[in-house]
C-alpha cells in the first residue's frame, strides 16, 4: 500500500517513537488528566506545555466511514478503494485512520476495531485498524 508518509513534528515525536515498537500512545493534559487528540505543543485545556503520554488499549469503535472510490492524496489507484474512518478510542479521543484487512465496504459505524500497524519507510509505523477478532493482515 502506497501512502503519503507523514512528517514528524517535534511535539508528535513521542507518538512516533512509540510506533516504532507498535505501541499506540496518546497525549494527556497533566493539569486535568484529560486525553486530547491531535498532539500539540500545549494541552488544549490548560495551554500548558505539561503533556504526558499514556499507552492506549488499541481498541476502538468506528464513528463514521467513507470508502474512497477515487484515489485520495498519496494513494495508488492500483491499490483500489479503501476505507477512511473516524475511530473512537475508549480512552476518549477520536482519530482518523484506515480500516484494513477486510472488504472496505463492510466497514460501518459502530464496528468494533483494534489497532494494526503499517510500516513507514523510516522505521516508524502508522496506526490503522482492523475488525476486532479477525486475523491481522499479513
Amino acid at each position: 500500500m502506497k501512502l503519503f508518509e507523514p512528517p514528524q513534528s517535534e511535539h508528535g515525536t513521542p507518538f512516533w517513537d512509540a510506533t516504532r515498537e507498535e505501541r499506540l500512545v496518546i497525549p494527556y493534559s497533566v493539569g486535568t488528566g484529560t486525553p486530547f487528540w491531535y498532539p500539540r505543543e500545549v494541552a488544549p485545556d490548560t495551554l500548558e506545555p505539561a503533556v504526558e503520554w499514556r499507552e492506549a488499549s488499541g481498541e476502538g469503535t468506528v464513528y463514521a466511514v467513507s470508502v474512497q472510490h477515487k484515489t485520495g492524496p498519496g494513494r495508488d489507484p492500483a491499490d483500489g478503494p479503501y476505507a477512511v474512518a473516524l475511530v473512537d478510542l475508549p480512552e476518549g479521543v477520536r482519530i482518523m485512520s484506515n480500516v484494513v484487512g477486510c472488504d472496505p465496504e463492510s466497514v460501518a459505524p459502530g464496528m468494533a476495531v483494534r489497532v494494526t500497524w503499517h510500516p513507514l519507510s523510516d522505521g516508524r509505523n502508522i496506526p490503522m485498524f482492523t475488525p476486532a477478532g479477525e486475523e491481522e493482515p499479513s
Partner: protein
Amino acid sequence: MTERTLRGAAALVGVHDAASPTGVLDDHGRALEARMIKAALDDAGLTLADVDGVTCAGAPAGLAEYLGIHPRYFDGTQVGGSSFELHVEHAAAAIAAGLCEVVIGVYAATPRGNRARASGGFGPGRGGPPGGMGANPGVEWELPYGLRTPMGAYALAASRHMYEYGTTSEQLAQIAVDTRRWAALNPNARFQDPITIDDVLESPMQASPLHLLDCCLVTDGAGAFVMTSAERARDLAKPPVYVLGAASAGDHSMISQMPDLTTTAGAISGPAAFAMAGVTPDDVDLLMGYDSFTITALLHLEDLGFCAKGEGGAFVEDGKLGPGGSLPMNTNGGGLSYTHPGMYGMFLIVEAVRQLRGECGERQLDDPEIAVAHGSGGLLSTMGTLVLGTEATL
C-alpha cells in the same frame, strides 16, 4: 439594559455575479474582481468614490490598492465558503458603529480557466504536499489516510447521519434533483437538464456514500455586493435588502475535530440570526443554503430549525425544496448545478438579494419578503447565517 441589535441597521444595495453554462469565464483575477465591483456599484447607483470599506476572503489591502481607493474599513476574514456571510455580518456591525458607510465585498475564482492558462486549478497549496511541517496538523495526522478533500469529510458526515437517523442515499439525491429543477430555470446555470434520483444513485461513487451528483460543481464564477447604512440605502437605485439578523459560529477545522458529525455550528449561528431578526424558520420565503454536497444542505435544514435533527431526509422527500414547493431552496441552481468556484457563499447573497427585489425572471418567487443566506466554510467548520428582508419586514 441597552438593547443592542444590528437588525435593519445596514442593507445590501448592490449585487452582481458571473457564471456561465460553459463553466468558464473569460476574465480572471483582479480584472474579474474589478468587473464585479463595478457592476455591483452600478446596480446600487454608487461609484468607487463612495466606497470606504473593502472586504474579501484574503488580503483586502492589495484589492484596495488595485482599485485605487483608500478605505477606512478592511475585512479579510477567510473561513472558506462562508467568508462572505461573515463579511456581511461584520460590515453590518461596522456600518452600525459608524466605522464606515459604504462597503464592497468581492470574490472571483476561475479554477477551470486557470487550467487552460496552465496556472493550475485552484492555485498552489490546495490539496498538494505540505508547505511546511507542522504548519497544518492535518498533514501529520490525517493526510496519510488518503481521505479525499473536501468530499471525504462530507462523506463521513453523511455516513454518520445515515447511521444515527436512517437517512438514505435516495433522500440525499432528492436534494440534487430539486436543485437541478431550479437550475433549469436559470440560463446561466452550468447544468440545466433535469435529473432523477436514479441518475444520482447511478453516478459514479466518489467517496461513499456520496455519488458524483451529490457533489458540487467546479466552475469559474465571481460576484460582488455593496452595503451601506439603512438611511443611505433608501436614496439609492434599487430597493434595499436589509440585514435583519446575522451570526456566525464554528467548532473545528480538521474533520476529526468536529464534535458531532451530524450537527454543525449552524445550530448556533442559525438560531442567533433568527433571534436578532425576530423571525422563525416558518417566516422564511427562500433558503439559500450552502450546498457543496447534498449532505451539507440537509444538515442546514436541521440545524437552522426547518425540521428536527435527524428528520432532514424525510423532510426533503416530497420535493418541497424545488419549484412550487413549500420551502424554495437554492433557486439559482445552487453549488450543485449553477456554479461553484470553490467558495460559494457569495452566490447565496446575490441570489437572495435578487429574489427579494423580484429580479429573477422565470425562477422568481412570488413576492418573497424574507430570505436566509446560510454559508458553510471549511469542512462543515465555520457557519455564517444572514437573515435578509425587504422594506416591509422592518
